[in-house]
């Protein structure tokens, strides 16, 4: 049993992302906004397993998160797909401090990309009603999310990367 958990730790972490996404703890929020949780898992996973794996699991994550949110007209898949590909091209940095700083910066940019793509979908959907201008003030959601994601990423991503590296030899690695 213990061996099983060691081998599959990355997949077990993936399963718990939607639970954290639903949990939405208020004490961790900033302006009522939460960090973009899926990026914390996707960054170390893609860095270790490459762009193709990043793309596949970005798509999987998007599917699950779209399923548990009630917004049927908008999707998180494009943002997570692009982040998966991009994160897969990033190499692990040797320097402790620079490495940690990079996680924060990369996750912030990823969160900005995902938030902007989602926001664009809202604007495009409401463009025909000419009510899209009403949505402009909600752009603060993106910036609050970028700040929080970048703030927490060094802490969470470095721990997850260590964990995934530890279990990497026996974990599922999909090569195409």
């Amino acid at each position, binding site marked *: 049993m213990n061996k099983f958990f060691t081998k599959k730790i990355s997949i077990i972490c993936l399963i718990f992302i939607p639970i954290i996404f*639903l949990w939405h703890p208020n004490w961790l929020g900033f*302006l*009522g906004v939460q960090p973009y949780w899926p990026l914390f898992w996707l960054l170390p996973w893609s860095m270790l397993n490459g762009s193709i794996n990043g793309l596949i699991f970005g798509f999987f994550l998007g*599917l699950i998160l779209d399923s*548990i949110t*009630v917004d049927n007209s908008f999707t998180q898949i494009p943002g997570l797909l692009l982040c998966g590909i991009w994160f897969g091209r990033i190499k692990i940095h040797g320097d402790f401090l620079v490495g940690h700083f990079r996680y924060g910066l990369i996750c912030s940019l990823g969160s900005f990309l995902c938030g902007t793509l989602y926001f664009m979908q*809202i604007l495009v959907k409401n463009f025909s009603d000419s009510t899209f201008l009403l*949505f402009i003030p909600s752009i603060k*959601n993106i910036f609050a999310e970028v700040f929080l994601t970048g703030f927490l990423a060094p802490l969470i991503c470095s721990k997850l990367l260590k964990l995934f590296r530890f279990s990497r030899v026996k974990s599922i690695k*999909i090569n195409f």
Partner: protein
Amino acid sequence: MFNIRRISTSRWWHKKKSWILFSILLFLIFVRITKGSIYKDFYYFISKPFWPGHSQKDLLLKSFNQEYLIKLNLLKKDNIRLREILNLQESSNSDSILAAVISRKTGSWWRQIILNKGSKDGVEIGSIVMGPGGLLGRVESTSFFTSTVILLTSPESKVGVWMDRIQISGLLIGSGDDSPNLILYSKDAEIKVGDFVSSSPASTLLPPNVPIGIVQSIEKPFQAKKTAKISLLAKPQAIDWVQIFNLKI
């Protein structure tokens, strides 16, 4: 004569990894089709020890008394109008379901709450959800144990509302922040800060005269439309208990 023979026959279906990937994909399709109900039901069980206590019910009842006073005034006026207009939708408060909020996403783009009552308790898609103060939103999907409510602040929410003081209908649009926007399709509508907004008496989606909010600020008219920010009476970020009403249409 050469005997041509394949030394190894490696196909993708011989790889264990391909089957693992295929089964993950099947599972995700299942999650997608069931709208994540397996996750919501799982979340129901693991969050059970942390649900709000029963003392919240007393606070809820006090708030409902205040709300009923506002409703009473509205109903008196509505009664006069009903003598002239027929075929208004009936709503009954007798078949309400009390539910606790087990997941709350009130920030960012996803503005929804998940309640601990689902299809087994008789919750239906389209039922309205009210908290202390007024309307919170509508039930968008249900699983066996839970129901997901799309809040009035969600970018997907659009409901018809009624401005009682100036006797005019408008459209309440969620915009992804805490104050939804009210659109009045008349440039000359004389709305004021502090005006009361309720559900439309002629609505087919909502019961009539449900308190919704108060005008917080008014913007300049644009393209023969007047827009205003609405402060909701029911605060989804602070409510732990809600009532679900199944509509009789």
